């Protein structure tokens, strides 16, 4: 892999809860992103995927405590907190928020809103900014004369394109896209995905695609990480995740997802994820797993290298554990 443009190193996030308790939302997440790579972060609600990327952007609320490193081209931008993250936000790392298309200010034109990050960062203003807004709009497939229109004059798909244009305004190196197609119709979803793929291709932009939808990751990303209960339980090439998963959760998640042509039964995963406001003992997935054995309820599995950049946190991959159990 080329030197990563962005890396998360052992990222932890805790949220303060009332009565001095803490919720350990992200529990030691590490991954790297090569320039131009499309990386998927997949998991169910509450698994910490959104918290992880908000952490990368330094956008967590004051009730959150963060530990670990966010390394942008070799520099830990979390070293001095907000003062070291702020210069990189939007300029190097940009984000499309979940529901961004519904977050435009209704009384300002789309063009003015796209120009805003450029003005805030002193990249350009006035006519130059207007010129750039036109380019950005065309880049995402909207004609430049629509810059003077208001959000209500755009369809959902068009507003999502505008949100992408806004994220690209300062020419970032990394784009974090949080469920960018979730509220859209299938056909519009396909259009937006096609746009994101061509943008990463044309601009050499690296992208983290955050979604609960495995097939999306399978079709868009080269590599992906599966999150469960605040940690990455498996990471690798999407082909490997589908054809040779190293963690039962990944396998069961694929088995729970209906596919158009595969007529084999789809099966749900019993139970639900563990609470994150208490310490997890053993494997967090053990209570729902179909392959548990002796160590699972008591020993927490670590990510294990399975070769070719494929890692998984499951005792089944540990020959020593398996030998001891049998």
């Amino acid at each position, binding site marked *: 892999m080329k030197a990563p443009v962005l890396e998360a190193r052992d990222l932890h996030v805790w949220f303060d809860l009332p009565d001095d308790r803490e919720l350990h939302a992200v529990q030691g997440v590490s991954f790297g992103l090569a320039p131009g790579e499309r990386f998927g972060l997949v998991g*169910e609600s509450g698994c910490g995927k959104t918290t992880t990327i908000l952490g990368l952007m330094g956008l967590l609320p004051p009730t959150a405590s963060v530990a670990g490193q966010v390394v942008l081209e070799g520099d830990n931008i979390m070293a001095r907190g907000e003062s070291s993250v702020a210069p990189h936000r939007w300029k190097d790392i940009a984000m499309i928020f979940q529901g961004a298309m519904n977050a435009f200010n209704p009384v300002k034109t789309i063009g003015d809103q796209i120009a805003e990050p450029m003005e805030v960062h002193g990249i350009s203003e006035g006519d130059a900014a207007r010129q750039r807004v036109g380019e950005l709009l065309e880049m995402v497939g909207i004609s430049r004369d629509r810059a003077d229109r208001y959000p209500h004059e755009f*369809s959902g798909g068009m507003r999502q394109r505008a949100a992408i244009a806004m994220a690209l305004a300062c020419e970032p190196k990394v784009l974090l896209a949080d469920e960018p197609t979730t509220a859209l119709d299938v056909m519009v979803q396909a259009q937006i995905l096609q746009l994101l793929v061509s943008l990463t291709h044309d601009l050499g932009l690296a992208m983290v695609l955050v979604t609960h939808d495995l097939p*999306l990751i399978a079709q868009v990303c080269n590599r992906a990480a599966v999150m469960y209960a605040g940690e990455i339980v498996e990471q690798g090439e999407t082909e490997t995740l589908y*054809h040779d998963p190293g963690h039962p959760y990944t396998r069961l998640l694929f088995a*729970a*997802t209906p596919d*158009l042509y595969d007529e084999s039964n789809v099966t*749900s995963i019993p139970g639900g994820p563990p609470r994150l406001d208490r310490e997890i003992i053993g494997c967090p997935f053990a209570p729902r797993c179909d392959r548990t054995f002796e160590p699972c309820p008591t020993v927490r599995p670590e990510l294990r290298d399975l070769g070719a950049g494929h890692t998984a946190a499951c005792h089944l991959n540990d020959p020593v554990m398996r030998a001891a159990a049998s």
Partner: protein
Amino acid sequence: MSTNGQVHPLLEVSDLVTRYPIPRGILGTVAGRPQQQVHAVEGISFSLNQGEMLALVGESGCGKTTTAQSVMRLVQPDSGSIRFEGSDISTLGFRELRPLRKRMQIIYQDPYESLDPRFRVRQTIEEPLVIHGVGTRSDRPHRVKEALVRAGLTPPELYIDRYPHELSGGQRQRVAIAASLVLDPKLLVADEPVSMLDVSVRAGILGLLDALRKDGMGILMITHDLSTAAHFADRIAVMYLGRIVEEGPARDVVRNPQHPYTKALISVVPKRDPRDSSEPQILKGETPNPVHIPSGCRFHPRCPLVTPECPRIDPELRTPKDGTTPDHRAACILV
């Protein structure tokens, strides 16, 4: 089967039209501006048998939810007939509908919104019995438990005294299903029943609907998700701008789509296998506004195969020349 021995479908919808007027406002009315309408459902027909699941599939604005609401008589159709167990219910009044409501129930997309947060599970499920005067005070607890068991919430004692906020999304949707099962309906309309739920619990809810279907219930499922429809429905009807453009056995529609819209829709469904490199056929633009419906075939402005005839001819559903089964039909002059 009715009492006189005549066989008819559980639900038979013919030429259903439902439109919503767009408010003109005072100025518009004074100025005599023409009354505009949203053409939500524009003449659709389908039938549903006992023990069958029909999926109405389409993008937002295609009229699938309006169809479901019209069938349930939650909105007033403009014309057409809705025959439930053989009798036309499309013009029945509120009072006459009431006994029918027991026999046809609807569950909604969002179990976070559809349950009263101040009701315990017991109250939520008992309420329909009270409203319809079903059962006695002493046998209702038994019926409530039975409904919970049928909805897969076992043992019922574990759930019966809980509030919605103490339940997961999947459990809430099961409570909503239990509240409709308690009246022992013959028809269940499920409007996007799993789209708000996590992937790992969706299959459980869909499996439950499948089990109810096998028990003889007729299920009309509204969904935007073709993969779900392909897996669980017996038949699929694809809607576009208020019309059914293709209808047939689920397998035939998915594996041998005939209408250009269905073909495109199927091609863009993301596949689970990253090695699947089939080229998505992405249509340009978005579904037009259902106020101004295009002339002729309503799909012609976006159709990749459009012919000069298409803006003039409004095609009817018919069996394709190379169709695999006679009950697979598509509305396109090219089929």
